[in-house]
């Protein structure tokens, strides 16, 4: 990193060495292993301006094309450069209702920052960190409300208050619709609240972004399981909603088809994380919801959810936490930053390994897990090299807790109770890609319930597209 200062000056005109992002301060790994406070601490104004000054302000910026919610990145960065932070935040909020969240959990490295032209020779501009900075700045400095069009007296029901639902609701409220969100849980945010841990996305930030939407006029009804207490068709036929957006997420946890999955100390990542994040089990017994953590935890899976479960296990006091993933580091689907943070916090990685059986004692507690080693074969349909078991390579690892983080399937409650709603073989809802409309006129869908488990930002993009689709439909276009 600092080798440039030691080199002898070049004789001829030499290109400047590639620059790196202004580093973001973080909690020390040894310290943060013991708390649930946020790991990344964010830029201060000087750091933000220094980073923004590097932006080339390209005439044809590529970064914006890389953003699923079309944030005007070029302009907001220019506003940061000239220290007009509040205006920068409002610029982002023109198209993105949840910048403080996106600045923290978006995979910028595969989106805006991947297409950054400055990033061809250097580390790209730290767009995510800048977005986070201005959103946090605006929240701390009484951001003004945006202009809202007059109420147009038309009602929209949004099912689920996760990233897709919140985005759809925000965009429609801004256009003057009366939006009601129906949420099954007692708190808003969906996966932002039950899934993503406090140390990666503080819940106060989610609540602040939701409050902003409420100030835009969005109403949220809690404890409301659509499909049970009221059906989608009743919302339209009896309750007078002009359109419905389904953003119910990929809620049903997958388990492996191996023996021992029902043992007492095998948990879905959903259960484990919901207990800790939504129900605050890390504050047990002040909070009544318990969580169980052993000394030696295996987390099966290699995505962001697996990293979250592993890092949460560390914080709950497990001595040894190991990620078990059947492919190699190269194919690991989690964000690099999460993997890096997990490693810093002492999480082990056992790659090219697949569980074949979880072993238990008489009371149903895990006493070990049998695994087989894998090697990589030809690429499969997903383009990733297919893992193949190596014969006679089985061994037993010593664990007392297993957390299964191998993905989720769509929650079946709405498809089962909505006749005429077309779904795929996997149970995801089929939509028109451009408008987000389902097979039922006036019923739209987006996010993980359509794509299967994906990212916060892609769900937000889908919520945005559907809001546009709803607006067009109701205006006869």
């Amino acid at each position: 990193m600092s080798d440039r200062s030691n080199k002898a000056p070049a004789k001829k005109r030499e290109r400047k060495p590639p620059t790196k992002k202004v580093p973001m301060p973080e909690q020390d790994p040894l310290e943060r292993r013991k708390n649930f406070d946020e790991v990344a601490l964010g830029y201060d104004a000087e750091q933000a301006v220094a980073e923004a000054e590097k932006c080339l302000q390209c005439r044809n910026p590529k970064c914006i094309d890389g953003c699923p919610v079309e944030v005007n990145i070029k302009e907001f960065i220019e506003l940061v450069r000239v220290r007009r932070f509040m205006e920068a935040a409002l610029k982002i909020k023109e198209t993105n209702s949840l910048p403080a969240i996106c600045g923290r959990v978006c995979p910028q490295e595969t989106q805006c920052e991947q297409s950054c032209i400055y990033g061809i020779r250097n580390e790209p501009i730290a767009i995510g960190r800048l977005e986070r900075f201005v959103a946090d700045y605006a929240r701390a400095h009484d951001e003004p409300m945006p202009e809202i069009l007059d109420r147009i007296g038309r009602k929209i029901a949004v099912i689920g208050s996760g990233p897709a639902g919140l985005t759809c609701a925000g965009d429609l409220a801004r256009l003057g619709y009366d939006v009601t969100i129906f949420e099954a849980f007692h708190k808003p945010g969906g996966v932002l609240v039950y899934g993503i841990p406090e140390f990666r996305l503080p819940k106060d930030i989610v609540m602040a972004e939701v409050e902003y939407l409420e100030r835009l006029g969005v109403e949220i009804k809690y404890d409301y399981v659509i499909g049970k207490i009221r059906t989608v068709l009743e919302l339209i036929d009896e309750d007078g909603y002009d359109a419905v957006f389904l953003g119910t997420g990929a809620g049903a946890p997958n388990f492996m088809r191996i023996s021992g999955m029902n043992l007492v100390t095998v948990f879905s990542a959903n259960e484990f994380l919901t207990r800790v994040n939504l129900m605050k089990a890390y504050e047990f017994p002040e909070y009544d919801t318990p969580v169980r953590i052993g000394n030696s935890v295996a987390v099966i899976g290699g995505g962001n959810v697996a990293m979250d479960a592993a890092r949460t296990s560390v914080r709950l006091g497990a001595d040894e936490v190991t990620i078990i993933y059947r492919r190699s580091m190269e194919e690991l689907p989690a964000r690099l930053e999460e993997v890096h943070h997990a490693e810093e916090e002492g999480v082990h990685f056992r790659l090219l390994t697949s569980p074949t059986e979880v072993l238990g004692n008489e009371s149903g507690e895990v006493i070990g897990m049998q695994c087989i080693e894998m090697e990589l074969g030809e690429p499969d349909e997903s383009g990733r090299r297919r893992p193949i078991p190596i014969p006679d390579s089985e061994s037993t690892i010593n664990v007392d807790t297993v957390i299964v983080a191998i993905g989720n399937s769509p929650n079946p409650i709405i498809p089962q109770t909505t006749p005429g709603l077309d779904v795929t073989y996997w149970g995801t809802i089929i939509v028109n890609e451009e408008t987000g409309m389902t097979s039922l006129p006036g019923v739209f869908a987006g996010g993980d319930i359509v794509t299967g488990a994906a990212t916060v930002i892609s769900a937000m993009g889908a919520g945005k597209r559907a809001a546009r689709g709803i607006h067009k439909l109701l205006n006869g276009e």
Partner: protein
Amino acid sequence: MYEILFKKILNENTKFMVVDAPEIARVCKPGQFVVIRVNETGERIPLTIADFDREKGTITIVFQEVGKSTKLLGSLEKGDKILNFVGPLGKPTPTEKVYGTVVAVGGGCGTAIVYPVARAFKEAGNHLISINGARSMDLLIYRREMEEISDETYETTDDGSCGVHGFVTTVLGDLISKGRKIDLVFAVGPVPMMKFVSKITAAQEIPTLVSLNSIMVDGTGMCGACRVNVGGQMKFSCVDGPEFDGHEVDYDELMGRLNAYKEQEEISDRLWNESQGGAA
């Protein structure tokens, strides 16, 4: 917020509450459940709907105080409010069908859950035999209610203080051995009771439904805490149940899973008892 409109103490640790929840009362069906969170620090617990009144917009819950959360709920009085009350969840019992002779078996607090389902079976035109069992007479609940809807009523107590001295399975076994034709058994109670009821009926191939009280967090299929082995397949009590074919349920595994948080439950219970100024 959901107001408690009426409260009755059925016995020392079994409480009966009528809760104002008109939207749930409008659509719920026998066999479904609600998930309750009493206050901001509370946990989410599932309780099967014991009764409902569509006109008054109320849901009745009956529960046994077994730990902190049920004791906290039981400490609420008429006029108090429950913070979260979510439902109706789970699949309803198929009660519209005429089976012929239905035996409704309730053990302890389970009788309160059996009651609305048994009533629906009766209203559908079935011949209803009820067996209501408890450890002793003072723990028998819903005695008059069960008698009112049943064509034949039996009561059992473990200590013989009321009715037949023995278990619900004693009476059920008798009926079967006398050659009574039984077309369906519906049983709710402690896991061992459901296990043994199912064992008896399995031998005679009498269709048997049981309602499971698995640990849940969300109650909507999201957490998988309530997974149960039914006929070798993984099912979720919350969305696939809570009722299952009694002959297919792995009861031993279920009992283990119900004890998953025993240690923590004991800590919470002890702290609650201390906060109430009493010993355990």
